[in-house]
């Protein structure tokens, strides 16, 4: 086992991105993710990569568009309002089928909101986020270890499907310190294969064009239908989740990211009290782990969705369970973070009521 190092979540991302063979970062300061560009400005340069502090999030996402269209692994990080500004670019990038990584350390919204941890960007992340028919692969880490490992996974998925990928974390995960094990061999960027679509000069080949538009009659419809097939494949093959104590559960708590950590503590407390409670933690938010939930809903009567928002993922839970189960909700919006005992109370209320 490799040595473990105590790291901030935001620093774990930086190391994970570099270990994933990415050598291009462009971004703009915003709390609570500033440790990422700060650390990148040193680490990226140390590793011979590119670090640019841009004039805006708009410029940052478009620099990514350029660097990634040139065939390089490229990433940016921001927090909620900054991600909103990037949506135009993300839409173009999705429309041009270019893989990039965008990290969102979510904070309270809407508007300027606050800088406390929140999960209120779920819709924005899982419904495309910008204009047009598209989806972004969305991963939800819940530990510093995940923050180290997910950039590699995100780049692999993004490149496999030629699609933007998001990592959706929050201020708590970013600001928290935990032990990180450098669990994989760092990737040498030179070892990554050249992409057959990359813009790098047309020497010895036909020229290439990267674009998101097509004005020929009916052509965009064709392109979008083809992209829809890609999304169907991703939905079928890439659902990821973790479950705890679900086999005999009377109630399953569903939570991702920070909420899933707190819910996990609540579930353990409930088990100590003899309550048959499990936890389902979606790791991919898009594609949502619909299949396991559909299956569970055939035997489990009650689900409790816990989110740091007024309720967004709950829609996907309802869709997946197709009204077969009772869906309960506990939400803390605006930067509120639940504590295990309040989730336990909710669990007890549901199970008490169910009996």
């Amino acid at each position, binding site marked *: 086992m490799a040595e473990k190092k105590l790291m901030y979540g935001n620093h774990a991302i930086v190391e994970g991105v570099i270990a994933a063979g990415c050598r*291009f970062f462009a971004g703009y300061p915003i709390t609570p993710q500033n440790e990422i560009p700060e650390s990148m400005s040193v680490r990226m340069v140390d590793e011979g990569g590119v670090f*640019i502090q841009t004039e805006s999030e708009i410029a940052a996402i*478009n620099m990514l568009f*350029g*660097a990634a*269209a040139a065939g390089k692994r*490229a990433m940016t990080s921001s927090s909620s309002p900054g991600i909103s500004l990037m949506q135009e670019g993300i839409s173009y990038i999705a429309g041009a089928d270019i893989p990039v990584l965008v990290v969102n350390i979510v904070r309270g919204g809407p508007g300027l909101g606050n800088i406390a941890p929140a999960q209120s960007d779920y819709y924005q992340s899982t419904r495309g986020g910008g204009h047009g028919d598209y989806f972004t692969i969305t991963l939800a880490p819940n530990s510093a270890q995940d923050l180290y490992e997910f950039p590699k996974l995100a780049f692999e998925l993004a490149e496999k499907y030629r699609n933007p990928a998001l990592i959706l974390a929050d201020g708590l995960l970013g600001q928290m310190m935990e032990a990180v094990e450098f669990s994989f061999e760092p990737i040498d960027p030179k070892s990554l294969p050249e992409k057959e679509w990359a813009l790098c000069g*047309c020497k010895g080949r036909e*020229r290439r064009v990267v674009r998101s538009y097509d004005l020929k009659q009916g052509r965009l419809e064709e392109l979008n239908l083809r992209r829809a097939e890609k999304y169907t494949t991703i939905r079928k093959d890439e659902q990821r989740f973790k479950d705890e104590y679900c086999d005999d559960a009377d109630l399953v708590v569903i939570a991702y990211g920070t909420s899933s950590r707190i819910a996990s503590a609540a579930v353990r407390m409930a088990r100590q009290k003899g309550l048959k409670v499990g936890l389902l933690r979606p790791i991919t938010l898009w594609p949502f782990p619909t299949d396991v939930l559909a299956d569970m809903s055939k035997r489990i009567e009650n689900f409790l969705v816990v989110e740091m928002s007024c309720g967004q993922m709950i829609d996907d839970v309802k869709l997946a369970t197709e009204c077969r189960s009772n869906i309960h909700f506990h939400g803390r919006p605006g930067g509120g973070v639940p504590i295990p005992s309040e989730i336990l109370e909710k669990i007890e209320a549901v199970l008490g009521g169910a009996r």
Partner: protein
Amino acid sequence: MKKIFSRPEGLTDTLMRYCPGCGHGIVHRIVGELLIELDIRERTVGIAPVGCSVFADEYFNCDMIQPPHGRGPAVSAGIKRARPECIVFSYQGDGDLASIGTAEIIHAAARNENITVVFINNAIFGMTGGQMAPTTLPGMKSTTSQKGRDVRKQGYPMKVCEMLASLDGPYYLERCAVDTVKNVIKTKKALKMAFQNQLDDKGFCLIEVLSMCPTGWGQTPVQAKKWIGEVMSAYYPLGVYRDRSKEAK
């Protein structure tokens, strides 16, 4: 008999969809020639803007990318920094560069990004139907300034070369025009310098080209070229606004 002037290999065979007398075609032809003359076609990535020249990605015979409106300089910077061996040019109109993309062009210039910007100033939004642009002259009519641009309500035009010349960053800035043979030749010389500077790793170069938009201006092509000489270039004086190779001496 030898062919001495003809469509350069730096352009594709696709016929251009611009209106009759549009200046875009002249500038396209010049860039297409330079891709061959400087032997850079096979290592160049071009940026097509949003606007009439959105179709530029079909016309330049090199790798091309089409970014969001105004973001050409940022996309260019991304490509150039990711692949410094590539020659990158951002082709942009005035709505794209001087309106929605003002921040991107100023900061690319301030950072002295080693890119070449071809800036077409025709004083109007062409593709969307002749609306007022940031470069529309005082008193000039457009579909959103139908009684003529009233500077008290609609403000003054942006002089991009003058504005960028106030920054320390840019390496080379020149304003040209394509209204006369002489000016077309000068435009080519300026653009050649701008690409050569990139090859020599000198940094940010922008060539502004006053260019005819007969349709948007409600003029014939011949009237339009005369209007550049008589009116437009009086407001936007031609010339070199920054040449750091001279400053260094």
